[in-house]
């Protein structure tokens, strides 16, 4: 956020994000006590974590109002991140199958 900002508006947003994160955390823990089957429990927990993480990145790290170069930089990092996550998994799955 390299330009003039409306501090009042951002502080209001920060309060809402704090509330969302607390509620999201309570939901995550509540969902875990429901003992959902793994096929449902894992996606639910990860979906809540992704939603919470998005709020942190977009508002606390104010990526929602950032310059284009940062988006390109993070897009590249995200690409490598997925390679990093999935290439070992493909290797593992072929060795399990063999």
């Amino acid at each position, binding site marked *: 956020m390299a330009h003039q900002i409306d501090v009042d508006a951002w502080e209001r947003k920060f309060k809402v994000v704090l509330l969302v994160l607390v509620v999201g955390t309570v939901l995550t823990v509540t969902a875990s006590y429901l003992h959902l089957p793994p096929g449902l429990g894992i996606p639910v927990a990860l979906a809540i974590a992704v939603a919470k*993480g998005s709020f942190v990145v977009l508002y606390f790290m104010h990526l929602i109002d950032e310059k284009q170069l940062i988006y390109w930089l993070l897009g590249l990092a995200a690409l490598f991140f997925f390679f990093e996550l999935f290439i070992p998994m493909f290797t593992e799955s072929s060795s399990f199958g063999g």
Partner: protein
Amino acid sequence: MSMAIPYTAEARPDTGLTNVKIGIWLFLASEVMLFGGLFASYIILRVGDPNWPHGAEFGLSVPIAFVNTLVLIVSSYTMVMAWTSLLRDKLSRFRLYQGMTVLCGLTFLGIKTFEYNEKFHHGHFPSEHNFLAIYFTLTGLHGLHVLGGALYNAYLLGPGSKMLKTSRQQFINRVECSGLFWHFVDLVWIFLFPVLYLL
């Protein structure tokens, strides 16, 4: 002749960003790779073991981790409020929020130390099981990040704040970038909490 490094306080004309902003985002991108590799290891270990244990089997406490999660979330909020306090030119308010951020960081580490002690007391070491190996690696690395962030935030609260008198904008940029790192640490924990304690 001035030896000052350009674009530390003003944005570069070509990118619209200060050097420090580009630098911290590049650093955070490398951190994504670091934690990404460890998360990939976790997935491989978990997928490869049909009897992967639940954290509770090794005494991982959900209530304690829940409290620690709330502590980090609150610290992220106080961090952004410290930054906006500087934008408002309210130094005492900055000190209050920055101090709360440091305190939350230390509280998180205190709780984590208590958890570690409990595990060691019950004989749960990284060598016992792959779950504990990846648990200690991920939470240990994360804890080191919390420690580093808390120390730097304490520096900005104390001796580092002298820069306010000489280069106000540069100091605000430092607090903003320290905040970006702190929020990243919070972000990592948001994923570690369900992955290690709940699933």
